[in-house]
């Protein structure tokens, strides 16, 4: 720990990206969603997870990123063309969302969302009432089936009171639904341990797989200079705090340099993005 060369200069998007990348595990089949997951997955594969396999729902199987110099950019989205170079197989959405995901081969789905609730249910479709939303978004894409069918979910969301709500306005993507046993009662397989990277820190759930514990979200670690009170204030219910709450380890110089080489035009990691 002490001999690591931490970066002095990094922004929030970069910090979130590295926290997310570190939450992935080697050897897993990882399914990348839109946005920050695309670059976090790229960095993780390049720096720490040589044996992880990267997939995207459009039909990309086991993508190996090239040197940033040659590649030019990390994928901007799940169908960006750098993903077509160095993959083991290119297929289509039926291969991915069917054989791969519903067939039970995705270990970790890496997802975004508009809202999340205390049981980790995600909403990606609208804020407010579905019939008369205050903000309507495009829709779920593959988020719904990934949350239904992956063995684990890592979510990334901005930590704001209107987004961290006791119950999502529309449940597009199931977490633990209504608590222990919720997934099983609805015909879904167990899932977990799930992780959430917010703009304030890293959160986990009081359960291994949705059967034990309370299944409620728990603050596990805060980002540097973020207080526990701030996190509680920005959460729309009485958030549980881990008794051993930690501070997230900052990004290293090596990580930040790689991120900037992978996103030279700051499509993903612009200052003020989150």
């Amino acid at each position, binding site marked *: 720990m002490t001999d690591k060369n931490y970066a002095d200069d990094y922004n929030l998007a970069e910090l979130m990206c590295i926290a997310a990348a570190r939450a992935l595990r080697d050897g897993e089949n990882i399914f990348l969603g839109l946005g920050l997951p695309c670059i976090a997955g790229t960095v993780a594969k390049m720096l720490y997870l040589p044996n992880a396999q990267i997939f995207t729902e459009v039909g990309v199987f086991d993508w190996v990123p090239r040197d940033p110099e040659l590649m030019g950019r990390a994928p901007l989205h799940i169908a960006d063309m750098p993903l077509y170079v160095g993959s083991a197989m290119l297929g289509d959405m*039926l291969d991915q969302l069917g054989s791969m995901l519903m067939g039970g081969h995705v270990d970790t789905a890496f997802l975004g969302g508009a809202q999340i609730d205390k049981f980790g249910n995600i909403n990606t479709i609208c804020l407010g009432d*579905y*019939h008369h939303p205050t903000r*309507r978004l495009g829709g779920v894409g593959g988020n719904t089936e990934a949350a239904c069918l992956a063995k684990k979910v890592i979510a990334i969301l901005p930590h704001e009171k209107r987004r961290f709500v006791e119950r999502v306005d529309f449940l597009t993507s199931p977490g633990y639904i209504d608590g222990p046993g919720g997934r099983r009662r609805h015909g879904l397989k167990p899932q977990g341990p799930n992780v959430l990277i917010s703009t304030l820190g890293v959160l986990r759930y009081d359960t291994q797989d949705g059967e034990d514990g309370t299944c409620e979200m728990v603050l596990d670690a805060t980002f540097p200079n973020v207080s526990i009170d701030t996190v509680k204030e920005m959460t729309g219910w009485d958030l549980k705090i881990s008794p051993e709450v930690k501070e997230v380890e900052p990004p290293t110089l090596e990580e930040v340099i790689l991120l900037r080489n992978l996103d030279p035009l700051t499509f993903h990691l612009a200052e003020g993005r989150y």
Partner: protein
Amino acid sequence: MPKSKLMTAKEAIGKFVTDGDIVYTGYNLIPHALCHEIIRQKKKNLTVAGASVPEMDALLYITGCANRAITGYIGGVVGGTLVGELMDKGELQFEDYSNQGLTMMFLAGALGIPFIPTRAFLGTDFLTEKCINHPGGWLRDKKYQPSECPFSGEKVVLLPALNPDVSIMAAQRADEEGNVQAWGALGDAKWALWASKKNIVSVEEIVPTEVIRSDPNRTILPSFKVNAVVHEPFGAHPWPVTGYYDMDFIFREVTLDIYKNREACDSFLDEWVFGVKNRSEYIEHYVEKFGYRALRNITAQPPIQPVGTISYAYVPHIQI
């Protein structure tokens, strides 16, 4: 000699797209040239369908060509856009599914079966009254059906088959007969095209049929399923075609307002859709406005080609 299916976008859209049709409009390989032709011909009451319909389709709703969408993602909707406004006013009806949902519905359509089970949507609000009977929709109880496997009793969700009346799609190349080759990840395209009653494909290159037949594994649709082949270089611009050109980020940046602001949209349509007769005039106009250099900057280079030889060899004269 099989009949050539080569025609202009004007002929193909005029002949095969009818008011009221359900239209698949591509996923990764996005047929902007064909879409603009639909707008020029002022088609009406179309329903767009696809896993995630491209943001290009926003132009179809804004111009009144399409008034319904069946999809997992309505491109061009990020709070406060013209598309959001149309949805609020009920002028764009929509049925929300997911990418897997639409892919499975096309698969059922392609297989000629009436419905298909999935484990997606279990435990979500999609299966609740508020989604099934929402004011923007029209499918009601024909949308999803929560059910059980008749053999194991497991919970599943049944989805109806979806057969588009016509698909428009961009691809890398085809022969004149209509054998289409495309590469890169294909999204839901293959199943949508198989499910579709008619198919129109715009391609970057027309190649001799011998070229297609020398590498048949790259073909995504055989000619009998294709009604029209349109030769439109840069037919997907400003979106990319793998191996030919990349996303035109600068063009997208300067035209970003078209989905947000009615005036910007009208002036875009006047300039880039109604102001040109076809894609080659569009590209001429592009070069006039931004310079040849801008076009060269999006050209995919240097080439990235498979290493090693692909052979389809066998023993033609077996010695017994």
